[in-house]
């Protein structure tokens, strides 16, 4: 269990480091995918979840029978294309 906790904390540090890298690097690194190149990303089949009500129900099914909880989401998917 301790190992699991340490794994989560380590991964969280990596994520936060990535966030900081992105935040601090914005001034020198330019967005590399141009708006006109986002046709595939904007396709509905690239949404992490196309139907929130339906996916919420499956999260509910699992959470009622499994101890894990949190970080389920992804309804909406995303690309910031518009």
């Amino acid at each position: 269990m301790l190992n699991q906790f340490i794994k989560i904390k380590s991964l969280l540090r990596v994520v936060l480091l990535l966030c900081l890298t992105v935040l601090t690097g914005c001034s020198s690194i330019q967005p590399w995918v141009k708006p006109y190149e986002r046709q595939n990303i904007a396709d509905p089949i690239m949404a992490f979840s196309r139907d929130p009500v339906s996916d919420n129900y499956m999260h509910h099914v699992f959470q009622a029978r499994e101890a894990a909880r949190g970080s389920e989401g992804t309804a909406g998917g995303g690309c910031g294309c518009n």
Partner: protein
Amino acid sequence: MAVIRRALSFMPVSRLLFTVISGCLLCIEVTGAVLPEDRADALYHYYSGGGVDIQGPSILVRKSIKDKVSVSANYYIDNVSSASIDVVTTASAYTEKRKETSVGADYLNEKTNMSFNFTQSDENDFSARSAHFSVSQDFFGDLTTLNMGYSQGWDEVGKRGEPEFSEEADRRHFRLGLSQILTKDSLINFSWETITDEGFLNNPYRSVRYIDGGGYSYQAERYPSTRTSDALAIRGMYYLPYRASLKLEYKLFSDTWGIGADTIEVAYVHPMGDEWIFDFKIRQYDQNKADFYSDLFSQIDAQNFLARDKELSTFSSLTIGIGASYAEELKDWVHFDSYSVNLNLDFIQFDYDDFRDLRVEDTAVGEEPLYGFNANVVRLFFSVFY
């Protein structure tokens, strides 16, 4: 025994939905500087497995106002008929109904999206209220979306047959997420959520068993009054060369009760023409037991905290899901743009490593066969976009 006839995990269902809703708020804003699309969904859901049947409708309506605000309302019902192993071995079968209503609003201001939601859920021995807030911001040429969220919930726990029984529990969720477009064909999402609970966290009906002479007896469960958990998920989507997508997801979970869990999911989406979309997915979940869980305690009051909820045991589950969706434009309709009809089927297998099947009586105490069951889930829904 009539008092405990309602033993099983449907008391926590409301609080679990609270987690789901708060998690989804996190995601909705992954879309960043775009309001959710106007739509209405009517879902019929059906679950059958382990002696439990649950079915009912869910209705969602969402409408935007002047491209700045989107409001939504959701109504959800669970009709439960339970003769699960817990109920069969310690009580008697029961039926019940749970109703949930929620209202929400999204506010968009340039590249910032704020979401608010309030939910109320009621059963005859349990009620839950929860409030959710999240904010997301697009930046870096809209390649990156950062989101944060907070939720708070208030539960009131009752007990059938004991009107004087009344307990409370409070819950707090803290969420952080980052979505990044990596290439013109791939994107990645990280999400982290910490949840803290405080109050009466166990099921007032459930019992643990302990060795008593040559057999066993039952006593009430006792859980700690606090629980804190962390979940970290990493998801990736990849657009395949022939217009199909592949999703990979890995989630780590850990809590202060000693439970650790891993979830791996792979999903494949394959469209055919402009109308049809087919979904395939496989999901593997593994968890280890809580520190205070045991299928059979050595004696009465063997330790401070006692649990025999199979949800807290060591087990794994495997899910295989398929789905089909048909969508069509409504060209001649004034007020509607399109509609879709969707059918999803999921088959789940649960295998428990230290939860035994007490329906088998002709074995020595503690040597009953391990429990396991299969469940089928059906989701049939109709959506209209306007």
